[in-house]
């Protein structure tokens, strides 16, 4: 990040067009490298000024709902040790605007697009997926951590039965590759993973945020108006890694995208050794817009030295 040595040789230049040496495949969809962005930390309208989005393995966009959602009022963020707690409340312009505004621009820019889907009820998830069925998104990522009225307010992603019912229904609406994104806030993530795969999920991505909060000791009150939010960042890295390892041990074949605390090629590599096909970089992009590209280039150098792992990924396989 220093401006001391403006070296211009390509291999050190994040901006120069780059021929990626190690690709991966997620549920049949080729990614030019194993690093994507995590939903909620990437908006094309903001990121386009900082790097060429087509350079990423994929981009997962902000969760879209049937109609625009306002999100939570007041302060939505609080700092935490090696992390951050956020409670955006899934504010988004809604699927119709997404289909007109963000998706076309992303495809025009050459990005591999994963459209993240949000909903507060099974009907809402279904409405969004139906509208996305024939758009040119490359994959769908169902965020099953949204509070769900059809599941009594708790999220579908915490109850295998409710999850199977939802995914079975969504499966019938589209044959786009469908990723189910898992929450770590469960007793046994492998039960949830199995329920998702058995009801038609083509791939899994994990983890979403951990439940957390901070309190301002000068007022005694929560910093975030919504009180609790989602913890993300390097602090959650070992938790995400353990989730991928345990799900991989139970489901040897399902494609897995590792998410949680990745801010370097080395951490991305740990997820690949835990059995992931690919990874997504979330909060690191909030601290530096080019973080996802940097992680992808760092991982590429590490994979250069690990041909067996690199070849396995390129063929759509995983280390374990």
């Amino acid at each position, binding site marked *: *990040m*220093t*401006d001391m*040595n*403006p*070296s*211009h040789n390509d291999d*050190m*230049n*994040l*901006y*120069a067009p780059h021929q990626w040496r190690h690709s991966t495949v997620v549920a049949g969809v080729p990614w030019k490298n194993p690093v994507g962005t995590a939903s*909620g*930390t990437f*908006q094309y*309208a*903001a*990121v386009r*000024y*900082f*790097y*060429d989005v087509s350079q990423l393995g994929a981009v997962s966009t*902000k969760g879209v709902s049937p109609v*625009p959602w*306002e*999100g939570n*009022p007041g*302060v*939505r*963020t*609080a*700092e935490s*040790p*090696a*992390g*951050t707690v*956020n409670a*955006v409340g899934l*504010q*988004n312009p809604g699927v119709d605007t997404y289909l007109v505004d963000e998706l076309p621009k992303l495809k025009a820019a050459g990005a591999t697009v994963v459209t993240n889907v949000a909903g507060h009820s099974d009907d809402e998830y279904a409405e969004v997926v139906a509208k996305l069925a024939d758009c040119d998104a490359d994959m769908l990522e169902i965020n099953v951590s949204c509070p769900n009225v059809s599941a009594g307010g708790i999220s579908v992603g915490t109850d295998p039965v409710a999850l199977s019912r939802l995914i079975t229904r969504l499966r019938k609406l589209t044959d786009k590759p469908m990723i189910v994104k898992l929450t770590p806030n469960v007793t046994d993530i492998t039960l949830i993973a199995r329920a998702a795969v058995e009801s038609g999920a083509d791939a899994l991505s994990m983890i979403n945020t951990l439940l957390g909060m901070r309190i301002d000791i000068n007022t005694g009150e929560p*910093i975030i108006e919504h009180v609790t939010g989602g913890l993300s*960042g*390097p602090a959650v890295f070992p938790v995400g890694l353990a989730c991928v390892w345990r799900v991989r041990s139970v489901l040897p074949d399902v494609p897995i995208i590792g998410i949680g605390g990745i*801010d*370097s*090629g*080395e*951490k991305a590599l740990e997820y690949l050794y835990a059995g992931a096909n690919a990874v997504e970089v979330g909060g*690191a*992009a*909030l*601290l*530096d*817009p*080019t*973080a996802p590209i*940097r992680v992808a*280039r*760092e991982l590429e*150098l590490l994979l250069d030295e690990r041909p067996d792992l690199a070849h396995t990924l390129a063929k759509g396989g995983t280390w374990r």
Partner: protein
Amino acid sequence: MATPMFTQTVSQACEAGFVPARRRVPITEVQHLTDGVVRLTFTDAYTAQHAKGAQFVNLFTPDPLHSAPRPFGVSEVNGDQVSVMFAVVGYGTEIFANLQAGDMVDMLGPLGRPFQVKADAHYILVGGGLGVPPLIKTAQDLAARDNVSCTAVFGYRDEHFADAFVDQYADELLSIDESQGNVVTLLDRLEPALSQDSREHIILTCGPLGMMKAVAAWARNRGIACQVSMEQRMGCGYGTCVVCTVDTKDGRKKVCSDGPVFRAEDMGWNE
């Protein structure tokens, strides 16, 4: 963050047609003004060249326990030197206040949408406490344009720490501290002169929410256009995370990229 092997540079970004991302810049001066107010100056040609009044930069501490971005209005630009001015109120400002010339600091910017300024108008820059720094830069911008002029109206808790800085740029300066009154007191004092001045008047204000609401009401009651520069806790500062929202007439808007400057009437304060 782990030591990144790649350190993208400003020139590499610009050559490729992109905006420079987070970068490590040298600090050239750290002035301790009054009670906990610090003026920090660093070298960044890109920000110096592009920043407009009310735009801000993110500063980052080197401490992974406090990794979130800290936004500070660009207060003054001299050559490739950029100055910010802040009060020590928490972990980050505490760390920045202890930096010295020669140290490095990570930053991102310039960020956000500045005050909208046009020719043939007289601007009234109404600042409160640490809302003052972006108005100094605004005065600096206005001073560099012909057929615009500005009056600075600054309210302080006590020490008038910014008067000397804005005085070089503003055509007129009125300032007050809490013991004597507030900025609205000063605006009332200005009113007679304003009403005799045929040019269009535009109020640009930044400071505590209560103050900005009072100033906006004052302007509205007199048919004077008013722009406000808002504050909200941020996640990224460049429009990608939707964490920094405030309520407006037109729904929840991002302070970092829809703002920080909004038209007062768009805030829906006049209910």
